[in-house]
């Protein structure tokens, strides 16, 4: 099940795409993945926690610290994914150093072996991408690239060309975390990306509520929601709260169809 073919098929059928994120290694994260799949997610992003997550705000920082303190390693997360049968594509999100340390080929092969479809490495921009992307391509792992509001048009095009699975539009200037309102940059980056690519365009960072998700989807093909999901994991310690939230977002996104 490739990430891009799954997302394209669903998008082309008129569905808005919902990709929740959970930090791997948090208590109950595997159950949460399965529950969110059942609640209407189209793919799920699993974080492999890193000690210095510069793209993440307080919620995911806390989740990462908690997971690491509990002994989480890249391998414990990947083994966990291996045992899941989510029925939707799984994408891992981590920072570059754990990948570099694991070894590009070894990491890509391991992702394929455990059934991971894609990877997001937010501190690996286009210029530094090659060693990882070649290994990932060879293993059939789709590397999703981020596209930020600060990029000029030609850079957005280059990113869309090289991205696999979908294009991850960064919805605002800032790190991950819940925001009261949808940033005005969200609609703008989605428009700019939709103008230059046929790949599914999902926006993420700062999308926190069902209403915000629905609003973003007036332009974008879908949304990635991280901190709002992870906060519910941190607060409740179980899979129910994030799954209920995903169901709410799903329902609200469907209303606008």
């Amino acid at each position: 099940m490739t990430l891009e073919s799954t997302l394209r098929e669903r998008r082309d059928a008129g569905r808005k795409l919902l990709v929740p994120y959970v930090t791997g290694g948090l208590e109950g994260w595997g159950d949460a993945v399965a529950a969110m799949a059942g609640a209407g997610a189209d793919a799920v992003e699993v974080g492999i926690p890193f000690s210095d997550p510069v793209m993440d705000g307080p919620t995911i920082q806390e989740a990462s610290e908690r997971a690491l303190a509990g002994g989480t390693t890249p391998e414990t997360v990947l083994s966990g994914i291996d045992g899941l049968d989510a029925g939707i594509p799984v994408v891992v999100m981590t920072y570059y150093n754990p990948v570099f340390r694991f070894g590009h080929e070894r990491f890509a092969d391991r992702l394929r072996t455990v059934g991971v479809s894609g990877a997001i490495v937010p501190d690996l921009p286009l210029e530094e991408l090659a060693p990882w992307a070649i290994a990932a391509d060879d293993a059939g792992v789709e590397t999703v690239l981020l596209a930020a509001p600060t990029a000029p048009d030609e850079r957005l095009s280059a990113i869309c060309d090289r991205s696999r699975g979908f294009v991850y539009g960064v919805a605002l200037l800032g790190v991950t975390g819940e925001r009261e309102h949808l940033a005005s940059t969200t609609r703008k980056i989605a428009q700019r990306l939709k103008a230059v690519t046929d790949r599914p365009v999902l926006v993420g960072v700062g999308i926190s509520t069902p209403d915000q998700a629905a609003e973003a989807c007036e332009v974008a093909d879908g949304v990635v929601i991280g901190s709002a999901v992870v906060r519910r994991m941190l607060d409740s310690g179980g899979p129910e709260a994030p799954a209920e939230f995903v169901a709410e977002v799903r329902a609200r996104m469907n209303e606008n169809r």
Partner: protein
Amino acid sequence: MGEPAEGGRFGEFGGRYIPETLVPACEELEKAFREAWGDLDFRSELEGLLRDYAGRPSPLTDCTHISEDLGLRLLLKREDLNHTGSHKINNVVGQALLARRMGKTRLVAETGAGQHGVATATAAALFGMECCVYMGEVDMERQELNVFRMRLLGAEVRGVSSGSRTLKDAINDALRDWVATVENTHYCDGSVVGPHPYPWMVREFQRIVGQEAFQQCHDLLGDVPDVVTACVGGGSNAAGIFSGFVDTRAELVGVEPEGGAALGRGVPGVVHGSKSFLLQDEFGQVLEAESISAGLDYPGVGPEHAHLAGTGRARYEQVGDEEVLEAFSLLSRTEGIIPALEPAHALAWVSRAREELAGKSVLLNLSGRGDKDVDQVMNRLG
């Protein structure tokens, strides 16, 4: 120590490993720095500020007493006598001028010992810019005076409570701030670390230290010193002084704290935007450094130092906290110069290696003054 290769590479090290949001800002900065560095008006304005505001050139002190004790000839490059008390001002004045040239109105910085934070707050005051300094809570406690200084200078100091609550985490938060504020803010990186062009640019702004020292040694010795040494955390003061001697016969020795010896004990890795040596566990998680000196309490090191170590042009030694405290006292007692704990690391190595160095001339970059550390050392020594 010339311009890095394509993409900001020093051999295999360096590069630009940062969130996509910051890539255009780093490209813009690289372009602006390249233009400014070739612009005589910019250079002359910087020179004027370093002379009339920062107090350059800093003197070279021929230390007769300690030299006799150690059986060598110790020369100190007195960066401790600069305005704000360390070499940090050289870089900060350069970056603030550049920020103004790029139309940025706000500076964001991280600080460990507080020296870079104080220097940045100073430059912000001088240029009428807004300034926000991130500092680990552990460091805020051990460098309380510098926190007050920064606030006095009009900067906002934000405590960092994540991770080890020291320099590494302060850099994380400064980068997070910059991701959100990049349109009006310049990230004023304090060392030769970070994404391209920072390691190159900061070294160029610190090059003045090596240039002056080269001339001063020539005037005093009629030659280059046998050995040039400096402490290394991120490595900006070492990069500055090494750059003046890298093409000479002088031996270059960087000195790391045992608890933060990225080159001595680390392996290649990527953090804070560049590939270098890094203290990390087998899974690639960055480890916490542990040093008596907040300014060297950093698990990484500048990529050019990794390259210099790899080619063998420089070597890197390690010293422990106890030796550092002895060196701190030794210089105070024999020469009447209280060094910062950071350069006391380099002196600790000189003292330990005195037999190897017997009869040689040793140039040591005294990168900062010890006023900020007196309280901490007093508590430690009782």
